[in-house]
């Protein structure tokens, strides 16, 4: 199980996380920020984290 957290202050709504995610975890939000819509589908691949240009995402294993 994976915990996906978003630092909203850093997010600029570029949607790269949504584009690289293989599991549709993200969706475009209405205020120009990304929304974590399906955290339970996350497989922990970290693609969103390493493609986020703003250090806004963290994906950590849930204990």
């Amino acid at each position, binding site marked *: 199980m994976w915990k996906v957290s978003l630092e909203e*202050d*850093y997010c*600029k*709504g*570029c*949607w*790269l996380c949504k*584009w690289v995610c293989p599991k549709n975890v993200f969706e475009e939000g209405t205020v120009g920020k990304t929304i974590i819509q399906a955290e339970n589908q996350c497989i922990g691949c970290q*693609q969103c984290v*390493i*493609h*986020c*240009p*703003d*250090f806004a995402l963290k994906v950590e294993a849930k204990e």
Partner: protein
Amino acid sequence: MSSYEHYLNKDKLPLFWCRGCGNGIVLQAILRAFAERQLDKKKIVVVTGIGCWGKADDYIDTHTFHGTHGRALAYATGIKLANPELTVVALVGDGDGATIGGNHLIHAARRNVDITTIMVNNFTYGMTGGQYSGTTPDHFLSTTSAYGHVEKPFDVSQLVVAAGAPYVSRTTTYHARQLEKYIGEALDRQNFSFVEAISQCPVHFGRSNQMAQPVETLAWIKENTISVQQSMKLTDEEKVNKFVIGNLVDREQEDYSRRYQKVQELAKRGV
């Protein structure tokens, strides 16, 4: 502490770069490479120039030097030669590193001073508003080439290989894992090591060329990326505006400082 955050100046965030700019991806890869090697930040000097990528020093919690446009490698040469124990990392853009800085790039490579040089190549002069640079691809538009670009671009990595650098790799911000790997290799090599990171500039380059959304610009980069092996099967025409990624050269070669030590020994013996 093995986290990249150890090297990040968090109080300067959010990053000032545009929405979707690839600079942040490259910055993260660099800080991860530092973290993986548990590098002592007091022994790292990050040297930048002018441009969007040149402002990366604001966000890095190591020794830093922010110099003039195009001259990062010259400053880095002095910094490194005076203290070879330092890990000197030069961050240059395609304007900074390959256009105004072109001469310093080829000489730093030729001289083989142990500097890890990471070039973000986004085919534009972003900070000044999207004018063309020495790497802007053929036929693409920019704010100073509204009728089409009439110059051919440098293949910067090949230029650096030809100048004699013993380690050269190229990849893109789409291939972020490979980017971190190459940056790590470059840091590990004790010689002039060059990593070219092809990156998206959606707001200037993208917008001038019908791909204004970050996803569109990065998708264009991804779709036009080929490996070194694939490129060998293509004709020159087929390779135009394709990005050949991979490790281009990786060989052992004594760096300037180690060679100069021998000069010092000779001089002291009075030879």
